[in-house]
């Protein structure tokens, strides 16, 4: 690919003009605030929707997906504590067989 086609040269010229402006925009405070706002709105809407569906499941005395997920995260936190403790024990007693080794 020694010869660069005309269409490619045209694109490269256009890209060189557009790219700095686009990059300046995404690095600006305005872009950061707009993105943060959009993410905040998305989260609020998502929470409202989850709240409505969870209320519906709770009406028939069943757990909603958010309840299950919350439990999974809590169990995950316990799992992490156990993992850290086992590693710290291993470091304190280097001679003992390592858990979950080879």
């Amino acid at each position: 690919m020694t010869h660069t086609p005309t269409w490619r040269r045209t694109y490269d010229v256009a890209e060189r003009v557009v790219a700095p402006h686009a990059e300046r925009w995404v690095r600006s405070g305005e872009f950061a605030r707009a993105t943060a706002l959009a993410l905040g709105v998305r989260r609020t809407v998502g929470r409202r929707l989850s709240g409505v569906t969870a209320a519906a499941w709770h009406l028939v005395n069943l757990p909603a997906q958010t309840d299950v997920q919350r439990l999974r995260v809590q169990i995950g936190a316990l799992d992490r504590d156990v993992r850290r403790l086992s590693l710290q024990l291993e470091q304190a007693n280097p001679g003992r067989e390592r858990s979950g080794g080879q």
Partner: protein
Amino acid sequence: MTTHDATGIAGRASQKVVRAGLRARNGARMATGAARPAVGQTPKDVVWRHGRSELWRYRSDEGGDGGPEPRPPLLLVFSLFSRSYILDLRPGNSFVERLLEAGFDVYLLDWGVPDERDAANRLEDYVDDYLPAAVERVREVSGADRVNLLGYCFGSVLALLYAAHHRDAPLRSLTVMTTPVDLDHLGPFGNLTTQGRLDVDSLLDADGNVPPQVIYQGFRSLKPTAAVTQYVDLWQGLWSDDYVASYQALIGWAQDHVPLPGGVARQLAGMLDDNAIVNDRLVIGGDRVHLSDITVPFLTVLANQDHIVPEASAAPLLDLVGSADKHELRLDGGHVGLLVGRTAARTTIPTIIEFLLEKGGRR
């Protein structure tokens, strides 16, 4: 028109027809997902595992156990944001392969794919628990007293924090590549929490981690025109099987992120607010951590066209580290170009290997 001109025109026309056919074939292959390039192919064994993390030892023909001469151990520490196969992308274009050829006993600490069990993970988990255990395991397997440590991107930050927080760490040398240090120069990532006042919790998924799609969109926004340019590049090289295979491997990796543990994300937001690395305000496990406590032979590699960790973000590192024997290598290339491609093959990798052989080649 001379006979020579006519032959030239006919030749170009014929080449265009052939390339159009190859483009159609390769385009169809890509669209159907056929002929996906294999990545991370260098043979390896899992020598340690904990949670989602695994320590891999790459196989080598000579040296090591029972070999003629012991190979110096080199532990690679990868980032928490993406997948480690970029270090072993394709046969012939693999950082790991080159390190093995240079005579190192190569290990890679892969963090795996976090799930809700990792949501509460903090930097301490990696710096104070996983890394010391992995280093210990490398010493055990290799029989060496000390280990060469090499971090890439955010893996460099983990390696730095480990070396600074564990002053007696059994390290022979420390090499870091594309390391974000001055966090004010990180661009959109820093702006979101500082100027956008973004609450990190608003980024977390139901499993408590930052989802990979958010990370991908974050990286994509750093170079907005790249999304179009990558397709333009593809169209231009679509006729070449080699180009398509490299493109698929590299673009596939660039889109292949892993969830970031929510606990780490919250800590990073705090570090961004404080610009904690440059301002010497790092706290790990309740202790103040100073990069000036790092005293082992040190090399930092940065790229002047890196759009993810800009040169200005990585540049202050050399002054912050306390080692008497410290070096900086600034290269003409991008974030990934330091590891794969022509610049990597010709300049980056040979220079890193030279440093490692000089500082950490003997056990």
